């Protein structure tokens, strides 16, 4: 086993359990390459030094700031929707005024129902009812 292979085993042994065969190989390699002991100590020192001693944290009131951010974002979204539909609102108002003006211009009498195009209840007067008496007409013709 080369020094590099043995070093690889040293590093692996720090993270996982080696198989009995690997353990045996490592023990032999440690005897063959005394420098491996020093390297193992260095790897352990690296791990020990890097490990966090205390829990990390953000600055105070972090959670409150996140919630404020979420609420702010929701408000912004509402505002964006309002802005987006504003142009349609203006367009709808313009069309409504145009239709109203046309109705006023063309209407014969200026009552509100007529201007707004509301159809009233229509009744037919007696004079307008067309009556057709078949027998009277036949007699006249004869």
């Amino acid at each position: 086993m080369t020094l590099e292979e043995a070093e690889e085993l040293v590093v692996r042994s720090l993270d996982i359990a080696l198989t009995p065969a690997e353990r045996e190989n490592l023990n032999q390699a440690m005897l063959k390459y005394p420098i491996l002991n020093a390297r193992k100590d260095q790897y352990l020192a690296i791990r020990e030094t890097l490990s966090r001693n205390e829990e990390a944290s953000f600055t105070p009131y972090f959670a409150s700031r996140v919630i404020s951010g979420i609420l702010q974002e929701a408000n912004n979204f509402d505002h964006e929707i309002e802005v987006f539909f504003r142009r349609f609102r203006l367009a709808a108002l313009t069309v409504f005024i145009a239709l109203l003006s046309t109705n006023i211009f063309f209407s014969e009498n200026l009552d509100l129902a007529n201007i707004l195009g509301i159809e009233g209840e229509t009744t037919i007067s007696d004079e307008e009812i067309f009556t057709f008496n078949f027998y009277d007409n036949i007699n006249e013709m004869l």
Partner: protein
Amino acid sequence: MTNEETSHRNMDQDDELLERSRLGDESAFKELILRYQGKVAGVVQSLLGITPESEDVGQEVFVSFYRSIGKFRRESSLGTYLIRMALNFSLNELKRRKKRNLFFTSIEASKEVQAQETGGDLKEQLNFELKRLDMELQAVVILRFIEGYSTRETSEILGIPIGTVLSRLSRAQKKLRIAITKDRA
């Protein structure tokens, strides 16, 4: 109470808080933030340093999670999911920094350079060398050594096989050892 029981209890509480958050309960979501901000801060600050940017990235993690809370399918634990998000967001921030060529603009980073130049202590040197590693190597070192996750948890968070975690850890450790040995020689 055993560790397993505590873990199950925490997951049940997470589920309840998640459900309430989905229904728009802000206090429930705040409780979730308080539960996980330490873990998220650990990952983000390890990659970006204790800087205003890391605070922004931390906020971005939770705000994004809130936006997509309905898509969270519990295929992994909430902690794993948030840490994965924190890692991805931090790595993206690092890429942005590199693109802007402002890698050393933060106060924290300049302190590290100063420590390196003046032969600071081993921890500072290691942190300096860690930031010079490839991002994929940094990620495994941060999760495994700094945050203390197991090899299996690290593989779950990163979504890579355990064998890959081990080989990346091996490469990273060798590079770190060589770097500090050379500097100290």
